[in-house]
């Protein structure tokens, strides 16, 4: 449904998107995860016909985004990461404006307004001025607006950004419900756990390139239970790194020097105790073993690379 082929976007000397190849199947919710500045918004802007790619092609439901832009606009519902609302318009007028702009008939506008406001829990706000709604309500209204013409494809750029936890949960539930409506959704976020809860597939973008892509079950299976441990020794860190690489439950050696070794550990607390015991028996002078923070994105990225290449990126045999 959404396909990109070697998509590139360059701003002067900065390459925002590099040879991006993406394939989002019809009816799936695809999560696009990456840090700020990774190229998510640029990619989504190209798909929403707001920007031209420097090279490469992108298709939405078979329509090319540069040459068939007018058709693409009818096929997508787009919600940018930051968007404003018009003052002096009520919720009903706001939705009616976009409905009419998309050529929805007057009768259908009334019907869809009721239906969508019920979906986003704003039925009681129909006559409120949009600028008097809270940020969370405006985000939900934005989602309803993007669905006004019943598009088959939705492009949502960080729809939950800037929302409080309660509003984020509400937004997540609404997006989950879109799957039942058979919509193809491309949704970006920099928070992997949030996406993992509502997506079918997840792609990681880094430095403008898609570095990993997998089904959400794979992500969950791989990420869950993974912890990053730092082992501190008096000396002999290099030998310890080689030793750890061959141990059970160690999926990756991330870094090491003479006094520190960082590993990815997939075992339980009991397994961790056993490992410490093994190290002590093997004669390593341990100072401490503790868990260090690593984002799920980093873990996922590392694990997916491992999967793609058939072996761990840095695991030493």
């Amino acid at each position: 449904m959404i396909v990109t082929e070697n998509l590139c976007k360059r701003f002067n000397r900065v390459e925002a998107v590099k040879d991006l190849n993406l394939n989002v199947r019809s009816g799936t919710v695809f999560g696009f995860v990456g840090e700020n500045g990774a190229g998510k918004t640029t990619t989504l802007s190209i798909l929403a016909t707001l920007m031209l790619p420097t090279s490469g092609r992108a298709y939405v439901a078979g329509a090319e985004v540069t040459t068939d832009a007018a058709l693409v606009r009818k096929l997508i519902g787009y919600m940018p990461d930051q968007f404003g609302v018009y003052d002096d318009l009520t919720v009903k007028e706001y939705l009616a404006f976009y409905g009419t702009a998309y050529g929805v008939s007057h009768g259908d506008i009334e019907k869809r307004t009721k239906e969508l406001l019920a979906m986003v829990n704003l039925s009681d706000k129909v006559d409120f001025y949009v600028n008097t709604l809270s940020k969370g309500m405006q985000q939900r209204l934005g989602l309803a607006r993007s669905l006004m013409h019943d598009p088959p494809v939705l492009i949502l750029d960080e729809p939950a950004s800037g929302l409080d936890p309660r509003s984020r949960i509400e937004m997540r539930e609404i997006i989950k419900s879109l799957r039942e409506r058979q919509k193809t959704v491309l949704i970006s976020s920099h928070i992997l756990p949030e996406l993992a809860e509502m997506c079918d597939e997840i792609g990681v973008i880094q430095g403008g390139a898609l570095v990993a892509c997998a089904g959400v079950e794979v992500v969950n299976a791989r990420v869950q239970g993974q912890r990053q441990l730092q082992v501190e020794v008096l000396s002999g860190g290099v030998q310890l790194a080689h030793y750890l690489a061959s141990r059970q439950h160690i999926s990756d050696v991330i870094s090491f020097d003479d006094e520190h070794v960082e590993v990815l550990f997939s075992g339980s607390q009991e397994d961790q105790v056993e490992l410490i015991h093994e190290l002590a028996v093997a004669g390593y002078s341990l100072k401490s073993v503790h868990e260090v923070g690593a984002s799920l994105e980093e873990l996922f990225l590392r694990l997916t690379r491992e999967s793609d290449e058939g072996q761990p990126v840095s695991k030493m045999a």
Partner: protein
Amino acid sequence: MWSVWWQRIGNFLSNPLLRKELRQRMRSLRTVLAVSLYLIVIGAVAFTFMYVNVQGQTLLLQPTRTAELFTFLSYLQLALISFVTPGIASGVISGERERQTLPVLLTTPLSPWSVIFTKWMTSISFLVLLILMTFPLYSIVFLFGGVVPSQVLAVFGLQFMTLGAIASISIFWSTIVQRTGWSTVLSYATVAAVFIGGSVVGYLFDTIAAHSPDQTIWVDLGTVAYTINPIYMQASLEASLGFITPAFHNSIVASVFTTVQLHNLMSAPSWLIYATIYILGSFLLLVICAWRLRPGTFTITQKRLLRWLLR
């Protein structure tokens, strides 16, 4: 043929953006207050002028005095147009950008031209409304003679043309620059350059012409500088309608009317230049805005043209 045009007009009037913009602009209390205040001020000016001239005896009002009042009111309105239009139109696109409503608007099937033209229409609509609401005041002028409706319509035509051009300039800056503040400054600067700069440049050319052995080129350049200035063109219109009265022969007004006659600004070529620059110029600026609004429109058109040529 007419049915096609009616259909087009109908389609345009059912344009959702036009309806939304008019609804937003006209429903606010600010609009009601602005219209009321304007009518009070213009009305007070007109009645004061008449009272001073007739000293309380309305039967003694002379038609020439009414023509003066009409000229005074029309210049007041020209001043209003040049001051208020940039304030209204210079934020129409940059304001959408600042409010972050533009990207969503551009992903709708509304074409960039439709967005720009609608914005232009709605930004001039408020001033058109103000001008039309002064019609009852002009009826006082008709009551005492000296001016006929066709003359009023001619002056209004010039003002609408000027209003449209100033709105186009302001929308142009609003599309080109990112911030409304800058767009407003540039719009006022452009209007000032035309109104004040045009007069200064014209005066400079006249001065050079007075001391030059070959006057023709300098006089012609002066004529062009005055022709693009609405102050002089409105004066030329009022001179051609016979509104010049002895009462106008104070230093500034006399100099304007003298310039009009010296450069023959009442001639058809001057009006042709004015109308061409203001109408075609406005259209061109709006086309540039539409092209600028959706990046890549030019590249896509270029590609399509190339494909069509190769076929």
